[in-house]
């Protein structure tokens, strides 16, 4: 369609709107309700423009382009209409910008400069709208400012997948409310703050703490999930005041999850470690860096000499930077140990040494929208990967057939094609059933090892969707990687991919789940599980909290307690490290160090420190480099993090090479039927890493509620227990007292007990046998 806007020619596809065309030629049309990622509401009427031969001004956002159309965005008619609308918007809007939190970054304020009058003709009483409490993240204190654009409502319906806000009442008494005073609990809710064009929805932790023009903007990358969300950190007086999304259509689009948005509070936590601590006579004492580093270097050297290098183990966090992980493994190997890992929640390492390359998503994130079918295996999708789930939601809303094979029937808030929810012990069998169904439907020989399984309607439907889809994909989630059968699930997924023509990949647990492999932070000797199962004399911990981050926290804790020497490189001075560490070295979190994350699609994203490190904290890579120097290890002469990165990859941005999910010699074999109760452990979204655990606002959300023991009604009946009771949950000699909750999403004969929380740190493995009894 060819169209003329203000005399400029534009060419838009059939079905495009005047707004699309205007953006193409760079003509700005004022608007409030229109947002490129949301459906069109055409309710604010700010974008009225003049169209030749149309008797009335038409809304640019909603008017489809016709061939030869002539549009005038700034004609007298258009401007008169726009000014008229602006006057209406302002009559009931408080005209007190100087005391509004949104002042300075308010679309209404900005446009009022161009389209508003100098004085108001409105002399009547103004509308007052009651405040609402919708939880700890979004402030709805000043709903009087709302201009009813319904962006927040549409965001809930369309992007978050759940309509938590709606517009109640009619006429000028319309107001945005939650259903019967509920809170807003979506894991993407904070985006509504960005979408709100006025000061109605504001950030509860941030509001009235700074003015937008006082804030310096720094580019950064989220250290949480594997997406590599692009952030803008806003800084005042060397303090991060808030985190906002930085648009990157190929990664996070224009969204960020609440975890990405509100975890910045932890950066300013009173629990930050500001000085090196070493244990003297049983108590941790503050010391200078040179003392602490000497102490650590000597201790490590002595243990390596006395007991051999293999008596030392190092565990890095998958949220650590590429450079930190690289230097950690280099240091460990320099000490003569191959016991280094960055996958603390993993249990099954059988694919180590069999992988053809670095495990990754198997495709680009942007390609998800072109899929016809997708299967996600073993994932608490929304809570593990909020924005990845959002991409699948958009796919499912359009044409994609999205299926789930997982260990719980949590609502992913997207229309599912098929789902299987099974006990963790049955997860390989369930996936094998899909493999078998695919082989049967394709008329191909059944892969050896899956003959015994029986297919069901769901497995057949899943297989069919993957086969029929021109582009389809299989994604293995966190639970699949943490499962004791991770290797089998990997092999089965590869087999399914081969049978159906789908791609196969891992969503990845953390910001550097791909990067850790590139940094070679993978064991040549004991892995993350074995290093605690066979206790070592000394441990080097980089950003991990083993009592919360490990697959078997009880085992990890006892190994650390019995070790001769534990050094923790940490940003925080609280937690169990204070009990078991002999030295605590303050390192800078992602905001205060330069470094790189490699996201799940293999995209390397490097960033600089956004602000000076807190107190005496230092970037982790520098601390490790100095330790290397003190230990007189070769190859630690780095002066910048870029030099470290250059030893890992020549890329500063772009896509890294060496990604391959293939396996050498992958025989399929299915586990036997597990008897008794099985534990299902999710890692709650706001307990997944050291930062979110210390973000106060996130800790007040419903997602951060204390873990309970959850089981379905049938399981409860079989156990003779009733909902609400406090139960003693026992695993591997440890126990925890938890409230019992009936939860229909938990498969039979399973108890869902979350990991990553102090209440359950006394328990054993994330998946496996568990006992419950009345307390």
């Amino acid at each position, binding site marked *: 369609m060819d169209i003329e806007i203000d005399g400029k020619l534009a060419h838009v596809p059939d079905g495009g709107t005047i707004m699309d065309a205007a953006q193409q030629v760079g003509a700005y049309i004022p608007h409030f309700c229109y947002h490129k990622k949301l459906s069109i509401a055409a309710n604010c*009427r700010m974008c*009225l423009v003049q169209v030749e031969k149309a008797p009335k*001004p038409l809304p640019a956002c909603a008017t489809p382009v016709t061939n030869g159309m002539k549009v005038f965005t700034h004609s007298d008619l258009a401007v008169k209409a726009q000014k*008229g609308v602006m006057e*209406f918007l302002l009559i009931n809007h408080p005209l007190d910008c100087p005391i509004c939190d949104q002042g300075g970054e308010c679309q209404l304020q900005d446009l009022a400069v161009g389209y508003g009058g100098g004085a108001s003709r409105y*002399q009547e009483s103004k509308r007052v709208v009651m405040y609402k409490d919708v939880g700890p993240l979004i402030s709805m204190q000043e709903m009087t400012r709302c201009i009813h654009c319904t962006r927040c409502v549409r965001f809930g319906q369309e992007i978050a997948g759940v309509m938590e806000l709606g517009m109640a009442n*009619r*006429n000028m008494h319309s107001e945005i409310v939650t259903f019967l005073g509920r809170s807003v609990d979506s894991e993407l809710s904070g985006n509504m703050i960005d979408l709100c064009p006025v000061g109605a929805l504001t950030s509860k932790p941030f509001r009235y703490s700074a003015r937008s023009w006082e804030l310096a903007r720094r580019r950064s990358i989220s250290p949480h999930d594997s997406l590599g969300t692009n952030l803008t950190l806003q800084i005042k007086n060397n303090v991060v005041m808030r985190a906002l999304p930085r648009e990157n259509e190929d990664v996070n689009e224009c969204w960020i999850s609440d975890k990405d948005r509100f975890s910045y509070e932890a950066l300013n936590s009173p629990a930050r470690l500001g000085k090196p601590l070493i244990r003297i006579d049983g108590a941790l004492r503050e010391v200078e860096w040179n003392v602490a580093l000497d102490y650590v270097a000597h201790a490590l050297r002595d243990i390596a000499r006395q007991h051999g290098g293999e008596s030392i183990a190092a565990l890095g966090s998958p949220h650590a930077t590429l450079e930190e992980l690289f230097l950690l493994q280099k240091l460990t190997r320099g000490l003569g140990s191959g016991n280094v890992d960055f996958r603390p929640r993993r249990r099954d390492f059988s694919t180590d040494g069999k992988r053809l390359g670095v495990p990754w998503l198997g495709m680009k994130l942007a390609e998800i929208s072109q899929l016809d079918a997708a299967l996600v295996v073993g994932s608490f999708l929304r809570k593990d990967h909020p924005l990845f789930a959002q991409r699948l939601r958009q796919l499912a809303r359009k044409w994609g057939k999205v299926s789930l094979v997982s260990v719980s029937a949590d609502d992913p808030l997207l229309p599912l094609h098929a789902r299987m929810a099974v006990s963790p012990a049955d997860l390989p069998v369930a996936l094998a059933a899909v493999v078998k169904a695919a082989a049967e439907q394709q008329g191909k020989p059944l892969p050896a090892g899956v003959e015994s399984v029986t297919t069901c309607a769901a497995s057949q439907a899943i297989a069919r969707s993957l086969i029929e889809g021109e582009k389809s994909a299989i994604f293995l989630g966190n639970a699949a990687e943490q499962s004791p059968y991770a290797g089998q699930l990997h092999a089965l997924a590869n087999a399914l991919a081969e049978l159906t023509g789908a791609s196969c990949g891992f969503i990845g647990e953390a910001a550097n789940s791909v990067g850790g492999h590139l940094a070679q932070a993978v064991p040549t000797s004991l892995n993350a599980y074995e290093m605690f199962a066979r206790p070592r004399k000394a441990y080097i911990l980089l950003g991990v909290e083993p009592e919360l981050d490990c697959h078997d926290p009880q085992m990890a804790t006892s190994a650390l307690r019995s070790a001769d020497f534990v050094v923790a490189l940490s940003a925080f001075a609280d937690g169990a490290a204070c009990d078991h560490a002999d030295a605590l070295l303050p390192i800078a979190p992602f905001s205060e160090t330069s470094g790189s994350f490699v996201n799940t699609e293999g995209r390397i994203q490097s960033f600089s420190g956004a602000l000076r490190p807190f107190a005496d904290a230092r970037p982790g890579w520098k601390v490790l480099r100095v330790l290397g120097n003190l230990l007189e290890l070769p190859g630690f002469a780095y002066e910048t993090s870029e030099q470290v990165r250059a030893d890992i990859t020549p890329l500063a941005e772009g896509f890294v090479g060496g990604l391959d999910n293939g396996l050498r010699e992958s025989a399929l074999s299915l586990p036997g039927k597990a008897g008794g109760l099985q534990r299902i452990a999710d890692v709650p979204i706001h307990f997944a890493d050291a930062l979110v655990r210390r973000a106060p606002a996130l800790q007040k959300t419903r997602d951060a509620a204390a873990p309970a023991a959850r089981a379905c009604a049938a399981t409860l009946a079989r156990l003779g227990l009733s909902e609400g009771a406090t139960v003693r949950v026992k695993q591997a000699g440890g126990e925890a007292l938890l409230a019992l909750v009936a939860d229909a999403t938990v498969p039979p004969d399973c108890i869902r007990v979350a990991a990553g929380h102090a209440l359950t740190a006394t328990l054993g493995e994330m998946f496996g046998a568990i006992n419950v009894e009345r307390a």
Partner: protein
Amino acid sequence: MAILGAINPMLSVGLDGDNAWRLADYVKRGGYSALRRVLEGKLPQEQVINEVKKSVLRGRGGAGFPTGLKWSFMPRSFPGDKYVVCNSDEGEPGTFKDRDILRYNPHSVIEGMVIAGYAMGAGRGYNYIHGEIWEIYERFEEALAEARAAGFLGANILGSGFNFELFAHHGYGAYICGEETALLESIEGKKGQPRFKPPFPASFGLYGKPTTINNTETFASVPYIINLGGEAYLDAGKANNGGTKLFSVSGHVNRPGNYEVPLGTPFATLLEMAGGVRHGRKLKACIPGGSSAPVVPAAAMMECTMDYDSISKAGSMLGSGAVIVMDETTCMVKALERLSFFYYEESCGQCTPCREGTSWLYKVVHRIEHGHGRPDDLDLLSSVTSNIMGRTICALGDAASMPVQSFIKHFRDEFAYHIEHRKCLVPVELQRAGSGFFKASV
């Protein structure tokens, strides 16, 4: 008595009292013969639509859009569900005709809808009934049950192979749900708010399927068109204004009620049928087509005939045929205040000019009425109305603005007097005399 008076009636023929609504009575009056003629005669769809086109039946809900033309917009060959929806959400102040059609002659609506469904290839219909008339809704459900039992609804109607199912759906009393796309939203179980058009319901209507929405009276007229033939139906009215029409006459008349007269009947005749102006007082003004139609002063109104074209020439609209008669005891400021309150209250709140503008209009008129008017208020009112009109998603913004504009245009002196003297031009005693609440005084 169902209809208080009629000239050459069609819809109200044989409706003598409250007992003639049942299927048996309707069939006795010749009911369902049009449906038989269509289905048993296997009339081509095109021919049915042509017959309606020839009749120049114009939509009885207010806009007066030619029904046959509307039906021809429906993509008949569209595979899959198509819907026919009847708009019985009669909420316009002054209008009470559809209520009586459904109360006394519900089968004519059912028959009309089945014929419409046949003509447009739709297999499903809904009748959306105003929320406040519950007993009418219940009666319509009874009528549906009768029609289903007699085989006029359901599968294979009259052995023709044509299937049509019809459901009654009642609203909850929001005026805006009479707007056709808000009505569709409401049937879908959503909040009743108009949709932006395009797309129009004929391509994206109920549940996203092609849908045609007509007024109750429109559907009720269809069987008569089929029976009489389109041209005869047209001849019953006036050129370009086919057929008879129900007028709901209310206000200061001696016999308020529904009257069926041919389109083109002089207003004077209708007024006379309604017993003339109450107490023999002088006519002051008339709103000829429901509260959203511009008011017409007495002299101009007496010149009009009751049809779309004549009323339109007088600067107003025939609308739904709700004739609100005002005599000389009426304070026009007070009358406008009440009308403005209605639109302020019933604005759905979706789009800015209507949500904010209707409340502004009401507040200013309210202020004038209560003696707090300001000299520039009348200019302000006309400026606000022109900022609302043509800038909203649906027509409610226009509906709220037109009374304000027309009242000020025709009765500016009364408004000016109010602002200047802080009281009514029409003496309060006279107003009380004309009011039902102060009968004792005169």
